Each structure stands twice: as structure tokens, then as C-alpha cells.
């Protein structure tokens, strides 16, 4: 029954599942407790502009998405800081403008974009070794930044006003957090795709938040839960020959649903 484990692509898929879970555990925790899920959704969709740019320039779309989504996230942060616009409005605009840019970039590149769908909806079974290395490096950067700035991230997430009052550079820290979300988006793109990834980022932490009030335990348990559920989704997708990204998201959604029941 478990013969699939011997395929190279399946082994890479499982490694990918673990690597995405690290990003989900570390950054997804902040996304959930700071209540910036829709902001993260906007950043993920803006990343499609980067994917399109990658096509246009003939570089790896995932690599192109790294600077693009960081710039998108930071400009979003700067706009919210400087311009009188509601966060809700800014999120909606970034969401579709990023997507639109991506589509135009792909248009500009003559010819057919064969695996565009894999960036939109994910394709964990086609993850390459290069993808894995990119994910690993981004994970390490994420973990390092989270470790170095854990006090600041906790402060701005819990009580931003008080953080300012004790001299914490909250604008800088908020920007850094947005950049981290952008990096996590890139880690997740290949696995569940831009359109679905916000659920993968948020659900593990949303599940675990019901059971622990310790942020460290929350991060670790979210990572473990994320890895288990992503792998389960992967196996189910393989067995029933379903779209992997969508299956993973549905498994996560079901788990969240069940966890609320258990908690009740």
C-alpha cells in the first residue's frame, strides 16, 4: 500500500510538506495571532506578479517571486503607514493588482505558459530539487529572523501601542513581519499554489491556538500538525488521483472543523 514512497517525486513531495510546515508554524502563528490573514492573502496573490515576471524574464518564477512579493509586501506596509487608506481597501487592491500584473507579464511573453496552473493551484508532485533548496534556504532565513526578533514580533502582535511606548520600532518590525510573510508565501507556492496557500499558512496555527497559550508551543505544534496534515493530503491526493493542492487544503479545513468540535 505504501509503495508510493519509493518514487523520487513522492519523496520530494514529503520533504516539501515538511519544509512548508516550518514556514506555517513560524510565520503562520504570527499571521493568526496578529489577525493579518487577509493581509497575507493579498501578499500571496501579489506574488503572482513575481511569477509572471519570472516567465517574462525567463528566470525561475519562484526565484522571481521572492523579491517581487517582498517589494509588494513592503510597499503595502508603507502605503498603510503614510497614506490615508483603510487596511481593508489596500488589501483588496494589492490582491487583484498583483494578480493582474502577473497576467500581463505572462501575456507579454509570447507563447504558451505550460505550468502556470501549478503556481496558481500548487503541484507538490512536481517539486524539483531546486525548489526544495530554495524552500530550505527561505525556511532557515525565516527561522533566524523569528528567533532574533521574537520579542519585537510578540510585542507588536500583542499590543502595538504599548510597544511604541517602550521604544520598540514598531513600523520597522511590522515591515519585517510582512517581508517574512512574503518569504513564506514563496515557500508555499509550489505546494498549494497562490490561490490556496493562505489556508495552509493559517490553519495549522488556528488549530493549535485552541490548545495552547504558549507561543513557542504554538509554533512547534503548528509545524508538526502542518506536516502531518499536508502529508495526509498528499497521500489522499495520490491514492484518489485528485489535485494535490486542493486535497491538502480540504484536509486542513476538515481538521480545523474537527478540532473545534473536540474543543467544544
Amino acid at each position, binding site marked *: 500500500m505504501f509503495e508510493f514512497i519509493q518514487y523520487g517525486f513522492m519523496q520530494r513531495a514529503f520533504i516539501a510538506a515538511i519544509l512548508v510546515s516550518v514556514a506555517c508554524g513560524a510565520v503562520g502563528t504570527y499571521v493568526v495571532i496578529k489577525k493579518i490573514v487577509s493581509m497575507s492573502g493579498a501578499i500571496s496573490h501579489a506574488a503572482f506578479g513575481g511569477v509572471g515576471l519570472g516567465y517574462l524574464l525567463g528566470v525561475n518564477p519562484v526565484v522571481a517571486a521572492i523579491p517581487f512579493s517582498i517589494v509588494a509586501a513592503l510597499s503595502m506596509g508603507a502605503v498603510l503607514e503614510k497614506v490615508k487608506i483603510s487596511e481593508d481597501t489596500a488589501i483588496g487592491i494589492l490582491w487583484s493588482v498583483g494578480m493582474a500584473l502577473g497576467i500581463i507579464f505572462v501575456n507579454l511573453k509570447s507563447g504558451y505558459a505550460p505550468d502556470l496552473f501549478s503556481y496558481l493551484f500548487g503541484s507538490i508532485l512536481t517539486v524539483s530539487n531546486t525548489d526544495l533548496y530554495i524552500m530550505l534556504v527561505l525556511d532557515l532565513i525565516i527561522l533566524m529572523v523569528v528567533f*532574533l526578533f521574537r520579542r519585537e514580533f510578540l510585542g507588536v502582535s500583542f499590543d502595538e501601542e*504599548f510597544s511604541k*511606548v517602550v521604544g520598540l520600532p514598531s513600523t520597522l518590525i511590522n515591515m519585517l513581519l510582512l517581508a517574512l510573510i512574503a518569504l513564506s508565501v514563496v515557500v508555499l507556492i509550489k505546494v498549494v499554489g497562490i490561490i490556496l496557500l493562505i489556508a495552509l499558512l493559517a490553519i495549522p496555527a488556528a488549530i493549535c491556538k485552541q490548545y495552547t497559550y504558549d507561543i513557542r508551543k504554538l509554533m512547534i505544534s503548528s509545524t508538526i500538525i502542518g506536516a502531518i496534515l499536508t502529508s495526509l493530503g498528499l497521500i489522499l491526493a495520490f491514492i484518489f488521483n485528485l489535485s494535490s493542492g486542493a486535497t491538502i487544503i480540504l484536509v486542513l479545513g476538515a481538521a480545523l472543523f474537527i478540532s473545534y468540535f473536540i474543543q467544544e
Partner: protein
Amino acid sequence: MSLNALEMKDVSFSYNHQQVLEDINFIIEEKDFVAIIGPNGGGKSTLLKIVLGLLTPDKGEVKVFGREPKKALDLVGYLPQYTHFDLDFPIDVFETVLMGRYHGMFKNYTSEDREIALQALKDVDMERYKDRQISRLSGGQIQRVLIARALAREPKLLLMDEPMASIDPEMQNSFYRLISHLKDRMALVLVSHDVGTVSMHVDKIACLNQKLYYHGPAEEAGEGLEKIYHCSLDHISHGIPHRVLRKH
């Protein structure tokens, strides 16, 4: 000569072309206990935010212990209205208080910081709850924790924004008992829209409704209050709670 805890000179502030504060002149001496009273929307919170350096006035000068507000943050403690954050947040009491000891990026909390945070919890009699998640505390307990967080900074000036608003009358008395112990360590500024409960505990009352109308000993504050509330008021004295009622 010792520095005043707070000096405001001709301070004005407007928000969206709406004048919120106008020509505020105000001095708080060391170890003063001052209540700033005024109706909602009268600019009380704005005034506190200016002292905290969160807002910059359009004109005028603000000095906190002789320094710019942003450069005096290590001397100022702040008790916000506790309703403004998510109680379900994954943080326990001790970690919350420890945040008051924040020194800057890449600087770990030292064992001294932990001791001071623990002492602050002892000061507010919340030591035994130090590992408890904040949503499992009552309103009055949360407020004590937030006072401890402010005290952990070892401030010389403590600013409190509507500390009465979220706690029941019984808790209010114990709050004043707690605060009165702090009086010899720091200047205390309390902002409130509730005249009665405040006046019998503080030394001085200032009345704020865009302009600062009066500033002086609590017993004599009645006239100033009448002006800002536009209503008559019995005279306020120690030990007698009052209600402000509009004239019919």
C-alpha cells in the same frame, strides 16, 4: 532644582482639521497625583498620546522631565484602556509584564529584568498568577497586570487612561489603594470622564475639553468642571462621591 515631570506650553493639536487640543499649558510636578477630567472626545487620550510621543503637537512645547517625549520613554509608564487588545492572545502574565522591560533589539531580558518584573507583580499582588494566560483573569486582575507592566519600567511618571472604565466599584477602591502606594515613588496622571470617584482620591484636578480649564487642588475644581460640562455641580470635596447631572 528638580525637573517637573511634565511641562506643556501652548500645545495645540488638530486631527482631520478638527481642533482637539487648544493652547494647553500644564505643569505636573514630581510626585503629583493629578486627574485630568473631561467629557468623551474632549482630547484626554490625545493629550496622553502627546506625552507618550505617539502624537506630535501642531504647535507648542512638551517636556517630560526636561526632555522631548520620545527621549523620555524610559521614565514614563503607561496604563492603556485594557479593552484595546485581544485577550485570547497566547501570552501569560509574566511575559506581559516583562514587556515593560524592553530595552531594544537584540537585547535579551536579563535576570535583573525578570526580578523587576516579578517585583512589579508583587506590588500589585498578582505574583501567584504569573504563569496564567491573560484571558483567564478577571477585568480587575488584568488591570493589575497592566499596572505591573507599566511599573516594570520603573517610571517616574505614570499615565493612566480611563482606569475606572472597565472595573466595578469595589475594584475601583482597591485600585485607589494600590495607586496611593505608588504616590511617593512617581508622579501619577489619571484620565477619566467620571468626576465623582476620581475627586476624592487625587491631589489635583485638571479639566479638559479642547482647552485645559483649571488645574489645582481637587477641592477647588468645581468651577472649572462647570465650565467644561456646561452644567451646575455641587462642590466637590474629599470623601463625598458626586454625580454630574445636566440642569433641566
